């Protein structure tokens, strides 16, 4: 999965872990406070101008395309349901410049309904992490209690509205502690007063783009990630976010699968 966020222009703070000792916990200090990604400029969530269409490109593949959208959006989510007013499920978080999405290998003879929603909010300065080598099973005695999302008390008294594009609402002080060869605990300072939650985003080495890997609740400022094999070396950041208004609904009904297909 590749993503791109064109608003990230500040150079990445480079932090490298060189240890190969399993289970060794190292504390990595992130970039400087106040050097965060510029926040979006809009004051409130605008009325959506996204126009979504859905095309059945094969019996069981549907491609979505949308136009319009908000230039200050941090990205979009694509959601689906099998009833127009049913329960919508997030399929993917996408970067702001992406305007197509293909939903593949679908349930046959089923009505699919889609909508696209923007999300907004400021991201912290990214940090770069290199994890030591080691298999997943090397941490068998670790119950990973450190990984649970939580709010660590002692944050700033004054918080600021991300919906008012306050530069003071940007999350700061992102730090990473390598808990083992495949686990990292992140902590940061929450300055946002009105966020719907926090997103943890990463950009694995070799990828030009950040992507959302975890959706956390509001006021969370500590979370542990179990990494995937392609994340041994990656950049991470957190974003205080809120959702905008959804697009129009677009739907298609899938066809039958040919015998043997």
């Amino acid at each position, binding site marked *: 999965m590749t993503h791109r966020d064109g608003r990230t222009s500040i150079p990445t703070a480079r932090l490298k872990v060189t240890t190969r000792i399993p289970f060794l916990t190292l504390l990595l200090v992130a970039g400087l406070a106040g050097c965060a990604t510029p926040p979006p400029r809009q004051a409130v969530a605008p009325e959506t101008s996204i126009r979504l269409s859905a095309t059945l490109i094969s019996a069981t593949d549907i491609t979505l395309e949308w136009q319009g959208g908000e230039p200050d959006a941090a990205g979009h989510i694509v959601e689906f349901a099998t009833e127009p007013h049913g*329960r919508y499920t*997030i399929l993917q978080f996408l970067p702001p410049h992406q305007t197509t999405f293909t939903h593949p*290998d679908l*349930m046959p003879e089923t009505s699919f309904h889609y909508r696209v929603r923007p999300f907004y909010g400021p991201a912290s300065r990214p940090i770069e992490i290199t994890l030591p080598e080691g298999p997943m099973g090397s941490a068998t005695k670790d*119950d990973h209690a450190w990984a649970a*999302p939580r709010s660590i008390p002692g944050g700033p008294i004054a918080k600021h509205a991300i919906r008012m594009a306050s530069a003071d609402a940007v999350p700061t002080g992102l730090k990473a502690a390598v808990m083992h060869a495949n686990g990292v605990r992140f902590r940061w300072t929450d300055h946002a007063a009105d966020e719907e939650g926090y997103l943890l985003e990463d950009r694995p080495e070799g990828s030009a783009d950040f992507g959302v890997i975890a*959706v956390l609740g509001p006021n969370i400022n500590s979370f542990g990630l179990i990494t995937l094999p392609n994340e041994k070396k990656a950049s991470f950041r957190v974003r205080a976010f809120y959702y905008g208004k959804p697009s129009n609904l677009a739907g298609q009904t899938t066809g039958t699968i040919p015998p043997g297909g």
Partner: protein
Amino acid sequence: MRSPNQARLRAGVLVAGPLLVVLAALPAAADPVESGPWTSYSPSFNVQERGCGDVSDLTFKLTCSDDDGDQRAERRYVTYTSGIRQFEGYFKIISLGGTRVSLKQTFKDQSGAYFMLAVERGGRLYAVNGGTTIATGATIGTEVRVNTVHEVGRTHRTYINGSLKHTVSSDSGGFYDKLGAYRTSSGKGPATVEWSDIRFWRK
């Protein structure tokens, strides 16, 4: 494909006494997937709590990190023997301190786990029996929709968020669904999983 611990799995199920029997499924206001006509039904179930397993309605917890023994918090639905059965539900991994925790299983009577959907790596990877990965890069904290269609004697299909991820042929016989949190032979807790909007149809 069957895991090495299936004999133990089966034994655990056979000795598991029902703690609670209530009707399971909600009225089917939604449309099932694939072609119909489908008839909604509400199979009964019992709750199985073994080891450090804890069940509270549709929240299933393994509260320990033991990597051995029978650790389970599950619903066991009644056996079916014929027709085409559809299951639908949404799960969310609230926390996963362990790994290789089964979320849903289809059991074949007297044979063991015929289909198993498990979660690994902090909720970022889904796998089926034998460790085959069927989805990776999952976004932590979001709900996942699961539909299974089981044609007894023919095939069992699994859809994750609407996309076909796994197909396996099916023998005839008696089968039943289980869902919750269950420590697989190579897995361990702790884990907290929430299921919601569980529905069943048949035709």
